[in-house]
């Protein structure tokens, strides 16, 4: 489903990704962990072309991510992204946040988009908030709306960049529950998170990144109980 070959990314003279090679299968849930500044967000953002790779190759669902605008918009519509700071559109109601892209990008009718939007809101447990504005919701509710908004495009892959890091601790659970449900339905997911419980329970594989490289990747049980890389050990020692 996702094939990454020797991905490198520079910001000016700073090399942030130093050659990432990995493969992610359909339906797989991959959790990316690593210290701050190791390039986790940059890696994720390259996967839907919010950042242009400096070199290397990314193929998603058979489509090569090149400079072609058509390919890029095609990829973006199929790869949903959830941000740390939600990034809901504050000037639109919750339901409008969800239906905007299906209507304007997928050319769906208002009625169908709305019907699907309401189903998605039900799925994330926010049916009663359709007519609210984002500013009237708690952080956890906003993030669940953001997930519903991404799902409205029927993506094949969902990227999550620290989806619970901006939330009060008591609101983390409700967002993780929605993500768990998605994983159970077979969604292909790449999740950057510090929630090790989630990684253990839901993750099929954990990738540990440090200094722009993948240092170690393994099934959660192995990497958490038996890491072989010294940096992985040091990192896990600090956060577990």
């Amino acid at each position, binding site marked *: 489903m996702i094939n990454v070959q020797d991905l490198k990314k520079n910001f000016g003279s700073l090399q942030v990704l130093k050659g990432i090679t990995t493969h992610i299968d359909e339906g797989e849930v991959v959790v990316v962990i690593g210290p701050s500044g190791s390039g986790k967000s940059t890696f994720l953002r390259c996967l839907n072309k919010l950042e242009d790779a400096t070199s290397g190759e990314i193929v998603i669902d058979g489509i090569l991510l090149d400079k072609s605008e058509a390919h890029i918009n095609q990829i*973006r519509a199929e790869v949903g*992204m959830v*941000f740390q700071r939600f*990034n809901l559109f504050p000037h639109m109601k919750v339901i409008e946040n969800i239906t*905007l*892209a299906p209507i304007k990008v997928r050319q769906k009718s208002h009625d169908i988009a709305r019907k699907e939007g309401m189903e998605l809101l039900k799925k994330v447990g926010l049916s009663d908030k359709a007519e609210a*504005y984002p500013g009237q919701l708690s952080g956890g509710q906003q993030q669940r709306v953001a997930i519903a908004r*991404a799902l409205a495009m029927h993506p094949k892959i969902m990227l999550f960049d620290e989806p619970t890091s901006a939330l009060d601790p008591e609101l983390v659970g409700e967002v993780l529950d929605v993500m768990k449900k998605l994983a159970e339905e077979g969604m292909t997911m790449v999740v950057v998170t510090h929630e090790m419980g989630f990684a253990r329970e839901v993750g099929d594989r954990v990738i540990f990144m440090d200094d722009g490289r993948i240092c170690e990747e393994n099934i959660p049980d192995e990497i958490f109980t038996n890491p072989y890389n010294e940096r992985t050990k040091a990192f896990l020692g600090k956060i577990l």
Partner: protein
Amino acid sequence: MSNLFVWKNFVEALPFLLTGVKVTITITILAVVIGIILGTLLGLAKLSNTKIFRLVATVYIDIVRGTPLLVQIFIVYLIFPPLFGFNSSDFYRYVAAVLAMGLNSGAYVAEIVRAGIQAIDKGQMEAARSLGMSHAKAMRYIILPQAFKQILPPLGNEFIILLKDSSLASTISVQEMFKNGQDIYNRNWAVVEVLIGVAIIYFIMTFTFSRILAIVERRLKTSD
């Protein structure tokens, strides 16, 4: 004192001045419309990824903001109308004034638009793009509607500045309020009375407009 300000002269001047108000407001509104269209295009050009757009916008803005409006009005008056084959009628002086003020205002509006767009959180564009929206669609549905609230107050301010500066159109004999005033005191020498009348009318216009603007702004704020 009684000779310096003759109440009768003041009162008699008012109706003549008020006929000029219509012209003052008309040329200001037309100029602002040109300024908003041009300024939006220039503001977007300044934020464009295409270097040549940025360069053209920057050069235009710098030149226009770096030279006096009075000089610009004269240059437009001397160059543009003959270019378009107008003859020396009142109409072409009006066109020259509106055009010069509009071209001038465009440069200032461009900076207002640019700042308004830049004030919107970068995450908004990223979220829109990640949903598959093109840059143009993201601008239209996500960025510009939010930027509008940021842009409105300085845009109102620009309108007020232009309303006052429209008095410069008198220099190319556009019959706006200040020119009407000059015509009156050239006849009766009641310079002080007429100019005080002119000032009062300008003040009433700008004050009223800024009050209306404040109300609109408050409405927009509470709709968040």
